[in-house]
């Protein structure tokens, strides 16, 4: 048998490792900053670039796509070559992927802080960056599939199946969720609106968790855990069964993020049903991971890499039990819009993804640089500090969630809300936010120890950029064996066939949920009094989105007594038909705003109240943790883009009259003048073209159309 000599590409792996270390430090530091901002709002500094609403998406994007993403690529490229006994398919594709990904991260940080955002959680990046992501992702996929095709190993090991599913899954999600209509270089509107946009976005959001944070890490677990422990995976059969079950079921579960919300019941029920079913395949992975260590637990005691992997797999099991429980409506009523969700995501992110990354790096970096780990003692210190940090981070947030929920639903003996002012509940949970900061600081400290340990190890070792290897040539992997073959061999014989079958398994859930939402008109009952946004309101909405207000304020009142008593009538699907994008939010750090324009509701405030509140929140709401937005009072609106926005909205189906774009600026100025006059009567002189006027107009639109006064005004016009 011919033995072929070739080289592994270690330089690309090294680059992604270094990028992980750099962006990991940045991402965690930014996370610490926003935790501090929530407890000490003065740290928002009254600047638009440093306000919580803009910095929080930087943290989430940096953690997911920069820290976890780079680590995932490092681990994937290293293991892929060894498993398939082949150098990566194409060096140029590898370099393109690496440098473009880092450029995307830089662009993301700059644009998000500058207020360019789509306003959709975890998919905030604007359309030019979306296109770059597509190129980088396709270069990753092409390199991976090319390597599979030119492999020297007949069998495709389980880890590679997970990597392939990751590529296909994220491709589907990114394409479907990013269909948007550009109105300028860094501004676009999604083609979906309201409930449809919500279904697509949370189908994406939930499956970004699945196919960016779970499936690649299961693949990494299937390679690095056996390698680090010196034990083959416990059950290969289980790995196949839980692979197909997990990738099929995950795609259906997205609507559990929208329970009790303005969405057809059937979609919510589908989301709940499949979420509960997800426990089984998820625990299949956890069991397979932990059972791999049978007979090797003595190594866990000694080896920091294994310690981190064990905590990661245990956290994976906890989070994948908690997730389905949170999708039960009775639990979701508590967990949604409170800190429970934040605790859940951080258990998964810090312990599962973080643990796998740290464990993988403690094993991989010494191997790659052919030197022992700089300090095992430091690694063990990192382990205990990080573990304590996770606990001190998550436990106070669970506590905060339950406390706030109990307060929000507390009634007096007379049947009135015991805590009618939302701020009272926020103040009560602030001590928990202080402890969370301590947890975050510990985790960050652990990361710095890890960083030092890694850099010292790298400095002491030497990278062989092109590591020599040899393996027997594999002759025609696509030929059917003359003696017959098992279904498994049939599946793997042609990589493209395997990929197509994975695509079908992945696509079914999305198709079943999304297509009926788009096609069945009765899913989206309209309300005759709901009208499109005026140019002034639309501009205010864009400013609201640019400043990330949705990070703290929801626009969705659930049909629960303690919500309707607090905010007013529950939200209906027809209210959101012109919302490109939807702005329902996922966490209420401040009160819901769905009825901020409904006169008589608890959240309706006058123009002067809003003006003063944006300028100095504490003068209006003592002890408020809302950042100050004095820049809204100073910044001018760009009027020239308004006609383009109106035309874009018309293209998306918003029923503005033909030619309205030419009158849009005049309409804007007339409406803005009314608010400026109202403010003048209250003693404030402000130009109608200032941003604050537009935001006030937008807030006064929320819920107005279904209020008696708003509906009457619309009917009068008709």
């Amino acid at each position, binding site marked *: 048998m011919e033995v072929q000599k070739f080289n592994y590409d270690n330089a690309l792996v090294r680059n992604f490792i270094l990028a992980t270390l750099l962006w990991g430090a940045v991402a965690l530091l930014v996370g610490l900053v926003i935790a501090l901002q929530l407890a000490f709002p003065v740290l928002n500094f009254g600047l638009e670039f440093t306000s919580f609403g803009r910095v929080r998406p930087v943290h989430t994007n940096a953690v997911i796509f920069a820290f976890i993403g780079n680590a995932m690529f490092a681990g994937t490229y290293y293991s892929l070559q060894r498993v398939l006994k082949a150098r990566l398919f194409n060096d140029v594709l590898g370099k393109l992927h690496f440098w473009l990904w880092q450029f995307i991260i830089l662009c993301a940080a700059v644009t998000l802080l500058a207020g360019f955002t789509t306003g959709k959680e975890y998919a905030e990046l604007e359309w030019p960056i979306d296109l770059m992501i597509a190129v980088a992702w396709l270069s990753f996929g092409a390199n991976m599939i090319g390597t599979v095709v030119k492999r020297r190993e007949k069998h495709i090991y389980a880890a590679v199946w997970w990597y392939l599913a990751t590529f296909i899954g994220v491709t589907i999600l990114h394409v479907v969720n990013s269909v948007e209509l550009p109105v300028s270089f860094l501004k676009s509107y999604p083609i979906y609106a309201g409930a449809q946009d919500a279904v697509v976005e949370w189908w994406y959001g939930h499956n970004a968790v699945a196919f960016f944070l779970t499936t690649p890490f299961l693949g990494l677990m299937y390679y690095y855990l056996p390698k680090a422990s010196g034990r083959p995976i416990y059950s290969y059969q289980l790995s196949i*069964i839980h692979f197909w079950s997990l990738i099929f079921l995950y795609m259906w579960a997205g609507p559990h993020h929208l329970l009790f919300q303005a969405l057809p019941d059937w979609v919510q029920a589908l989301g709940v049903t499949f979420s509960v079913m997800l426990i089984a395949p998820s625990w299949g992975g956890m069991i397979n991971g932990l059972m791999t260590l049978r007979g090797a637990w003595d190594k866990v005691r000694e080896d920091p890499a294994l310690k981190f992997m064990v905590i990661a797999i245990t956290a994976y099991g906890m989070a994948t039990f908690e997730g389905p429980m949170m999708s039960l409506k009775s639990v979701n009523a508590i967990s949604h819009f409170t800190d429970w969700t934040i605790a859940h995501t951080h258990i998964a992110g810090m312990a599962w993804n973080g643990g796998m990354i740290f464990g993988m790096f403690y094993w991989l970096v010494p191997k790659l640089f052919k030197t022992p780990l700089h300090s095992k003692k430091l690694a063990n210190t990192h382990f205990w500090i990080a573990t304590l940090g996770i606990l001190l981070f998550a436990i106070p947030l669970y506590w905060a969630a339950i406390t706030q929920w109990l307060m929000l639903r507390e009634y007096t003996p007379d049947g009135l809300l015991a805590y009618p002012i939302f701020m009272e509940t926020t103040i009560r949970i602030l001590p928990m936010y202080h402890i969370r900061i301590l947890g975050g600081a510990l985790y960050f400290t652990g990361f710095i120890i890890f960083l030092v340990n890694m850099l010292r190890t790298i400095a002491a070792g030497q990278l062989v950029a092109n590591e020599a290897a040899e393996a027997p040539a594999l002759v025609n992997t696509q030929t059917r064996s003359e003696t017959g073959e098992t279904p498994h061999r049939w599946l793997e014989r042609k990589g493209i066939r395997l990929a197509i079958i994975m695509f079908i398994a992945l696509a079914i859930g999305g198709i079943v949920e999304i297509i009926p939402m788009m096609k069945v008109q009765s899913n989206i009952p309209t309300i005759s009094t709901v009208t499109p946004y005026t140019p002034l309101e639309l501009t205010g909405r864009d400013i609201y989105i640019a400043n990330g207000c949705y990070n703290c304020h929801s626009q969705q009142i659930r049909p629960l007594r303690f919500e309707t008593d607090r905010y007013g009538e529950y939200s209906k699907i027809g209210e959101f038909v012109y919302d490109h994008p939807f702005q329902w939010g996922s966490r209420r750090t401040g009160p819901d705003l769905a009825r901020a324009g409904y006169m008589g509701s608890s959240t309706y405030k006058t123009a002067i109240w809003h003006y003063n509140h944006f300028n100095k929140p504490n003068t209006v709401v003592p002890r408020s943790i809302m950042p100050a937005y004095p820049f809204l009072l100073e910044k001018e609106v760009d009027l020239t883009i308004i006609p383009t926005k109106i035309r874009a909205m018309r293209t998306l189906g918003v029923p503005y009259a033909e030619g309205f774009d030419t009158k849009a600026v005049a309409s804007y100025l007339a409406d803005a003048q009314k608010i400026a006059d109202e403010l003048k009567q209250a003693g404030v002189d402000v130009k109608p073209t200032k941003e604050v006027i537009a935001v006030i107009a937008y807030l006064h639109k929320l819920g107005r159309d279904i209020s008696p006064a708003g509906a009457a005004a619309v009917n009068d016009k008709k």
Partner: protein
Amino acid sequence: MGFVGDTLGGIDGIQWYYIVGILIFVGLFIGVAIYTYSIPKKDLNHYKSSIFTKEELNNIV
């Protein structure tokens, strides 16, 4: 494709999405389980160990 068109035309019969979805999953699960258990033990052991070098294999107890 008349059935598909009719179903997509209105909310009636939406329960078919649950039923068909779960049936597809049950079918997939049974199929995968049967095919997985049809893989010979020898092959499974080979797959499991394929990521190890000869040296590493010698160290596995």
